[in-house]
């Protein structure tokens, strides 16, 4: 068996002089006479392979890559559009949500939070800002009956949202004057 113990890595050429001599004196390997012609054939073959593979794919393969990635992106976008369409806002208010009907429209009352509820293009939303302690359906109905013509100052509002399905196509904002969180006007009126 050949020993495997640690060997001093320092070069000691003299120790191996005989072996080095023998290795250097090893004869050349005989090469076939047609070595160069075979080499030319091989090069020609490899070039042929290259060109045939280029012909098969042409320059179309790069367009295939672009096309493929475009299709993937479109699929992802469509997935999000169809799967999450109209389901994203209602669920997060489950348990705290309140709904009523007014003038044939279904109204969902979300308790006062600072969350903004966004609609989709198919189901536009009317946002109604109200006082923080607003709770009852009756007051809401009252509001719609005495709906103010102009939308007053929007400052100092917390945004509980009311979603009205089958609402007009444009997005509108209303503020309930009477329910507004102690605005300057209300303070004055109280006085």
């Amino acid at each position, binding site marked *: 068996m050949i020993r495997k113990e640690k060997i001093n*890595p320092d070069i000691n050429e003299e120790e191996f002089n005989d072996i080095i001599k023998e*290795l250097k004196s090893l004869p050349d*390997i005989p090469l076939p006479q047609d070595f160069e012609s075979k080499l030319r054939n091989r090069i020609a073959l490899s070039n042929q392979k290259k060109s045939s593979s280029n012909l098969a794919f042409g320059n179309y393969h790069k367009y295939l890559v672009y096309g493929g990635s475009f299709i993937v992106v479109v699929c992802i976008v469509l997935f999000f559009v169809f799967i999450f369409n109209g389901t994203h806002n209602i669920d997060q208010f489950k348990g705290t949500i309140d709904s009523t009907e007014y003038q044939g429209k279904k109204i969902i009352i979300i308790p006062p939070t600072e969350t903004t509820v966004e609609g989709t293009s198919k189901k536009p939303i009317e946002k109604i800002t109200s006082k923080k302690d607003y709770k009852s359906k009756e007051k809401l109905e009252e509001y719609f009956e005495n709906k103010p013509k102009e939308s007053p100052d929007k400052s100092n509002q917390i945004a509980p949202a009311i979603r009205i399905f089958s609402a007009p196509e444009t997005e509108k904002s209303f503020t309930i004057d009477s329910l507004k969180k102690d605005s300057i006007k209300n303070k004055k009126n109280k006085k």
Partner: protein
Amino acid sequence: MIDYHKTNDEDLMNLFQKGDNFAFDELVKRYKQPLANFVYRFTSNYDDSLDIVQDTFVKVFNYKDHYQNVAKFSTWLYTIASNLAKTSIRRKKRFKLFSSNLFKNKDEDLEIEYPDNDIKPDDNTDNKLRAELIQKALSKIALHYREVVILRDIMELSYDEISEITKLPKGTVKSRINRGRLYLKEYLIKFSKDF
């Protein structure tokens, strides 16, 4: 008129990169023999070594633009040949392992004898037996020792060149050469006794 015989390797490669195929022919003439020696000593198989040498030149031809004039041409060439040789040896080893498992007899382990054309290119030499013995010993030492010993003692490359080809630090190359020689010596002694 360019005298290709007097032009150095790097300039020839430069000419070849510009489309001069005569420069490539000259490079083939210069390196086919040393490359064949190197690969044969590495793989110990004559046919494989010829194939590898040809593949090396085909790669040089096809990837001529990958060569940068910062490195010596010979270093680049030996790197390609060495990588191809290693791949071939590993592939052969896998194949041997697979085939010996496939044809294994349940009752007794059959020893498959591989054709003896592996170690026989030194027919016309006086020291035929000695050369065969050295080749046998070379084929027994580990690949990473074999590579550096061949590059140093047969191809007579410098430590820097070997370090560049093997992508190893110079110190590692030196220590591997030393260990390789030691293993080679021990195998030679062993085979001489057996002979």
